[in-house]
């Protein structure tokens, strides 16, 4: 299919031009180094800005679910500056060092968590030609990178030398390892459907229809299963057992203060975004506009909207879905969490993968 407008929005020519221009004045190594630096800073900036946006969104959304207004006194009627105020405060807050903790691991843990989420964050396909890391096995890279976060949580819980944090860490360990399974299998379902593991490849393969529509009911269910296990991976309600405020005061990060705690807090929201972003990529077509086969006029109109808008729009829609879930259900108990995974989600996702494989081989998908 011709995608004139999409190509128009593509950043690839621009980046290529910059690269060429830089290579003209310096050696290629230096150019790459410089570009990496700029991109790194840009990612971190985007990370921070998105965190602020997400926290603000969470507050407004949960306020609305709870028949109340939410922040409206800081920064105009909408309370727009509420989160910046929080950030400012947390930046200037004392970081407490514990006497009887494992200092190295204790200090390391928040950085591990933030590292994991930045790594997987950089894999998101923002727009055509705007994916920062685009590996051939991009999907696996995301899964692998996000697993580092579990290590951070485990270390945080263990090194704090407190019983509450230890329980929280063990809980999250048991939970995350389990949910990684159905998460991975759901991702595999899509990989089978698209026939590629590269993230940009998966997005490109959805040009004639998003995966969620292409795979009959199978991808729809896989989408739901992915959302559930992704929610669990992001440690968010109703799977926030590791924090479980009412049981473990603040779970694995009970002993962290100041910016260290801020890192956990940020990572929680960014993981939410990453989960939604990956869901968008895998099931909702990433930056790909909504295309309906046969309606060329409609498709052309859709193409006028830039890919990044599509991507953010879809991602925030999924974020809203996850918030809706979070602000509705009570928390599960650890054995229920594991039951849900091993008795219901795992068999289901295996079945989905099997059916998808059969459909694909028989050529029954769109």
């Amino acid at each position, binding site marked *: 299919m011709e995608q004139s407008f999409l190509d128009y929005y593509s950043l690839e020519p621009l980046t290529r031009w910059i690269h060429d221009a830089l290579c003209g004045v310096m050696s290629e190594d230096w150019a790459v180094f410089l570009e990496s630096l700029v991109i790194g800073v840009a990612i971190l900036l985007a990370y921070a800005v998105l965190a602020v946006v997400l926290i603000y969104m969470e507050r407004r959304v949960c306020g609305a679910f709870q028949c109340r*207004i939410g922040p*409206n006194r800081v920064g105009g009627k909408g309370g727009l500056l509420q989160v910046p105020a929080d950030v400012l405060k947390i930046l200037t807050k004392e970081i407490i060092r514990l006497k009887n903790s494992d200092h190295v691991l204790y200090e390391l843990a928040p950085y591990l968590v933030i590292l994991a989420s930045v790594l997987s964050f950089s894999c998101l396909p923002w727009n055509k030609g705007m994916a920062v890391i685009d590996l051939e096995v991009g999907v696996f890279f995301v899964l692998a990178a996000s697993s580092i976060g579990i290590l951070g949580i485990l270390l945080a819980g263990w090194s704090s030398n407190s019983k509450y944090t230890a329980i929280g860490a063990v809980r999250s360990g048991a939970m995350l390892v389990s949910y990684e399974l159905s998460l991975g299998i759901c991702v595999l379902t899509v990989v089978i459907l698209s026939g590629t593991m590269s993230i940009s490849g998966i997005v490109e393969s959805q040009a004639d229809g998003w995966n969620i529509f292409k795979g009959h009911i199978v991808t729809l269910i896989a989408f739901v299963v992915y959302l559930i296990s992704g929610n669990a991976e992001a440690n968010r309600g109703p799977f926030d057992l590791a924090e479980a405020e009412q049981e473990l005061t603040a779970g694995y990060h009970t002993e962290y203060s100041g910016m260290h705690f801020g890192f956990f807090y940020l990572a929680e929201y960014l993981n939410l975004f990453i989960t939604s972003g990956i869901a968008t990529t895998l099931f909702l077509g990433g930056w790909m506009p909504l295309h309906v086969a046969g309606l060329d006029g409609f498709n052309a109109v859709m193409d006028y909207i830039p890919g990044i808008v599509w991507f953010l729009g879809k991602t925030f829609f999924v974020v809203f879905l996850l918030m*809706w*879930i979070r*602000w509705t259900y009570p928390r599960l108990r650890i054995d229920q969490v594991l039951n849900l995974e091993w008795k219901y989600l795992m068999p289901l996702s295996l079945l989905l993968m099997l059916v998808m494989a059969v459909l694909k081989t028989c050529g029954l998908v769109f």
Partner: protein
Amino acid sequence: MNSFTKYVKRYWRSTKSLWVGLHTSIRVFFRKKVTEQYPENRHTTLHIPERHRATLEMVHDADNHHHCIACGLCQMACPNGTIRVVSEMKEDAEGKKKRVLVRYEYDLGSCVFCQLCVNACPHGAIRFTNEFENAVFEREKLHLVLNREGSTLAPPAEKKTNPVKA
């Protein structure tokens, strides 16, 4: 087979119950919010019921008269010593000795708001008001003196024509 149908049924029922939850919460999402906005509504819609007890006040009229005869009944009625009536004996014009109020000390920081003092007062000299904005930075600021500067006991005639209900 039976256990399998049960499994599927349970699957279905659970999913349905979860959907009902989502449905309820999204309905509330679009409902009008119930929040009252203090302090924005301070001068507009803020409604404090008349009987609300926020602080004790001594009733003063326009001529700076109060009705306290310093009998000390309120002090006696108070369960935790929040009220202290400081009085002195003074001779009036006819040479009769009379008890006169000097300071009516009231500790807002320990008041129980049980209304026993107001009930005990035979002259309706004190009452509870709605003035709830009392937070301060220092403990001493909560030790209040309720009789105003230079105020005196209302003359008896005026008291009859001007009864104050607590």
